[in-house]
């Protein structure tokens, strides 16, 4: 209950245009938003622009956000997803398809740094369909609940959980195949 009251207080301050509250929110969600964008656009700079645009859109649509009942993080990721999709469509029209910026390195030094398991998971994640990657990233990286992810992806929470389980099954299958290949 205390968390809800605190969240409502944050939303009220955000709605009133409190700059400090917005700065705090921005700093809190910026890394995950940037990571989400970086995996979907062609460059880090474009990812930064996408995050900035998403924040600007959120401020401009503050009234709708306040009435939605969503958390600020969920609202921001929802806006960011639309911004990224717009940029992807623009890149498709320009035939400037973004490359997947997944860490798929076989560099021994990097492998030693991050660990073989993490590299294998990243590689397997990069092979997932876009829909699965989108869902898992919102759930794992952004830390959103099934309800919040459902509001962003226009899905029911139960459907989000089902889709998440299927995405993890596919990820698991990829990891098993990779292990078998290595063995």
């Amino acid at each position, binding site marked *: 209950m205390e968390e809800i009251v605190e969240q409502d207080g944050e939303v009220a301050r955000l709605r009133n*245009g409190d*700059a400090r509250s*917005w*700065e705090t929110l*921005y*700093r809190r969600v*910026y*890394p*995950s938003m*940037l*990571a989400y964008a970086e995996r979907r656009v062609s460059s880090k700079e474009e990812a*930064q622009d996408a*995050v*900035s645009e998403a*924040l*600007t859109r959120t*401020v*401009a649509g*503050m009234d709708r956000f306040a009435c939605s009942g969503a958390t600020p993080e969920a609202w921001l990721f929802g806006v960011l997803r639309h911004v990224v999709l717009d940029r992807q469509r623009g890149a498709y029209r320009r035939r400037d398809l973004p490359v997947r910026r997944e860490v798929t390195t076989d560099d021994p030094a990097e492998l030693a740094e*991050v660990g073989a*398991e*993490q*590299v*294998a*998971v*990243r590689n397997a*994640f990069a092979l997932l369909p876009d829909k699965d990657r989108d869902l*898992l*990233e919102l*759930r*794992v*990286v952004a830390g959103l609940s099934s309800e919040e992810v459902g509001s962003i992806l226009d899905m029911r929470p139960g459907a989000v959980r089902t889709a998440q*389980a299927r995405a*993890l099954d596919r*990820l*698991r299958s990829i*990891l098993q195949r990779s*292990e078998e290949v290595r063995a």
Partner: protein
Amino acid sequence: MTLLMDDDPILAALAVALAPEPAEPSAEAMAVLHQALDALTRDNEDPVIVSFVPPPRRSTSTAVRRLRHPVAAVLAVAVLATSGVAAAGVATDHLPGPTRNVAYAIGLPVTSPSLEAAQGTLAVLSSALADHEATRIRASAAQLRTELAGLSPSDRARIQSEADLLLARAEGFLALSSTGGGRGPSGGSGPSGGASAGTRPLPGSTTGTGDDGDAGSGHGDSGSTTSKVAPVGGASAATPTTSADDGAGSTPGTTSPGTTRPGDDGGGTSDDPSGGGAVGGGNGAETTTTTPGTTTTTRPSGSDDGSDDGSDDGGGSDDGSDDGKGGRATPTTTRPASTTGAPSN
């Protein structure tokens, strides 16, 4: 890696693998945020109400602006007034001449101008006849004949009967006025007990004996009338018939007494009680009608039941209402020496 076969370990591994690198929004990004917040604050302080106001209708405002020009305004008023008058005129068929011409020309359901003129002349002629003004009667009758000649068949059919009637009356009046002088005699009307009295002298009356001199309002035929007596069961019924002459005076002297043509009503029926179409209601009473220059005396000689249908045209030979029982009205007419049976005009 076997630990990743469960959901929770694989989610944890995924969270670690995809964990974002530490990052801070740049100063530029913060500036953009503050600009957005400033814009939001300005919008809240100065709420834009205009967006909720429906945009003005372009067509109306444009039309109003055009009407500000004096010439355009005058033209608009003129068009509206003309249209309104025309619409009302078409609806009521009361239109001024030029407007009627235009309306008739474009096919609106209005009376044709020529028919309208003829109807107007009819009204003038009727008024002149009522006033016994010979000059107006003569002029309007001549004009009416001219206008009738110019009418289309359908238009002429609409007023033919009325025109014929009035023209006949006019002819009769003018005939009398020319022979008797001044305004024609009036009177000679009314029911005649037990007998029909021909009360309208018309130029077609060729007998000259039964003409009672009424020239005022009768519009019976000018031909002679005979009674065809058909014995039925010991009683005879008089069936007055008339000649084909419609009394318009157009064929003076062409009828002959004693002839009977079935179906020819001669127009002298009792549609005008003031004239010769009197309905005999009495029985055996003597009626004397005196008009300037003419005295008509009807003296019943039998049991006339007064069933005269009023079709008597004034011809002296008509017995009209004889029911075949022996009774017979015998009109006796005293006429001035100057009276003749032929119209003078």
